[in-house]
């Protein structure tokens, strides 16, 4: 493969990373906004959160992306394809993430909230100081799964000509005609990215476990050797 084609793939890889990280960051904001909203005592706020989740969980990210790129311009709104990609993926993943946030919040024992009431915290303080820090520990493993789903989902972006890894692969394939090598390389690159993301999430999990005073759960090798992690 010529250096130029290799540089193409590398650029594609960077675009995929941008899409994933951008959509993950924005999706996280949607997740927390909608997830916390579904736990609100206010029926309007709760309803809005529910609507977002049901709506965007049911819409295909690909169709949403098409809509942003090809339908929205009719309303006089031309989104940059990259931003459209990030927004479509974030809205979609955010709907799943909101359920994760809600699940994490609901799983915090009621006794914790009662203790916070006994100390006369406001509702917002209870959420911010007591519930969320504990809930986040429970949210991390499913968030890790969603991040990998998102990474793989970014490949829909090539359809609207965002030059991501899959798009770059197609270019290289057209140039060399070597489908087997190109797609094998893509498979491996996506897998490597996934492993990197998983490792990062796992590191964050350990850190959060530590901030709750829990010993980190033993890793795979420690577990099969039966060694207790310190």
């Amino acid at each position, binding site marked *: 493969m010529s250096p130029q084609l290799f540089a193409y793939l590398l650029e594609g890889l960077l675009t995929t990373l941008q899409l994933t990280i951008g959509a993950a960051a924005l999706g996280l904001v949607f997740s927390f906004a909608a997830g916390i909203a579904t736990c609100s005592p206010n029926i309007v706020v709760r309803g809005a959160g529910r609507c977002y989740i049901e709506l965007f969980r049911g819409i295909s990210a690909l169709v949403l992306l098409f809509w942003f790129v090809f339908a929205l311009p009719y309303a006089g709104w031309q989104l940059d394809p990259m931003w459209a990609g990030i927004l479509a993926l974030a809205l979609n993943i955010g709907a799943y993430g909101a359920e994760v946030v809600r699940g994490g919040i609901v799983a915090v024992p009621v006794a914790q909230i009662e*203790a916070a*009431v006994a100390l006369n915290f406001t509702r917002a*303080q209870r959420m911010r100081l007591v519930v969320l820090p504990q809930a986040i520990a429970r949210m991390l493993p499913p968030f890790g799964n969603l991040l990998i789903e998102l990474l793989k989902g970014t490949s829909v972006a090539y359809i609207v000509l965002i030059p991501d890894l899959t798009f770059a692969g197609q270019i290289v394939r057209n140039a060399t005609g070597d489908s087997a090598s190109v797609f094998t390389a893509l498979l491996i690159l996506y897998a490597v990215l996934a492993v990197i993301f998983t490792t990062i999430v796992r590191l964050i999990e350990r850190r959060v476990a530590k901030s709750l005073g829990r010993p980190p759960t033993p890793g795979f090798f420690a577990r099969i050797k039966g060694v207790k992690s310190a």
Partner: protein
Amino acid sequence: MSQSATEAALTSRKDGQFIHFDKVTKRFGDNVVLNDLCFAMGAGERVTLIGPSGSGKTTILRMLMTLMQPDTGTIRVGEDYLHHEERGGRLVEASEAHIRKVRQRITMVFQSFNLFPNMRVLRNVTEAPVHVLGLSKEEAEERALGLLAMVGLDHKIDSYPSQLSGGQQQRVAIARALAMQPDVLLLDEVTSALDPELAAGVLDVLRDVAKTTDVTMLCVTHAMKFARDISHRVLMFCEGKIIEAAPPEQMFDSPEHERTRSFLQSVLEES
């Protein structure tokens, strides 16, 4: 004790009525947990509630902590209604702001400690004084260190709750409650989850609190010796009603009511 003597003992022996339950009823489905309950406590008074499980003792504490609402009736703390407020000459359901104002005077220690696992010991104690009372971090830490020294845990300030024994956790929980400088301290079976040795440490701390402060205490406990030591009055509950109320010596040495006698008998046999 005659009916009128019980009635006399039901109202506070100290001057004024600081906490006042007026015809409070609470049902869970068909189960009437509290039935038209009336009783009052004076400021600084220490009252212990005894009685069989399910007789509504904990429900009283939970209502005072606003973790539960009465179905009918009112509860007053000082001059203020707890779950209601007066608006246009009528009693209406209290706003969150009103509840928070009145609740400021009350705090509770729970059976299962309920320390915040995401905070170290020191922050467990300083968090509410900083965020609720508006103390500076330094003031709150000074207060917390004093209280943690009182409960014998000033060497554990950097530990997480999960690294402490149950007895230590409960002592931190007591320090955390006292850091709010409450007028009313509610103790809900605070030693039931502890083995006897650890329970003794916790009860010693509470005896200290009773001796050195004038905080109003309302306890639910099965530790009868502790109840005798710290209480001004003991109330015997059965099926949502107070069936006997007396000073501890009288209640434990010569209970009037047959139900009280059998209850105390069974508690003694158990311990």
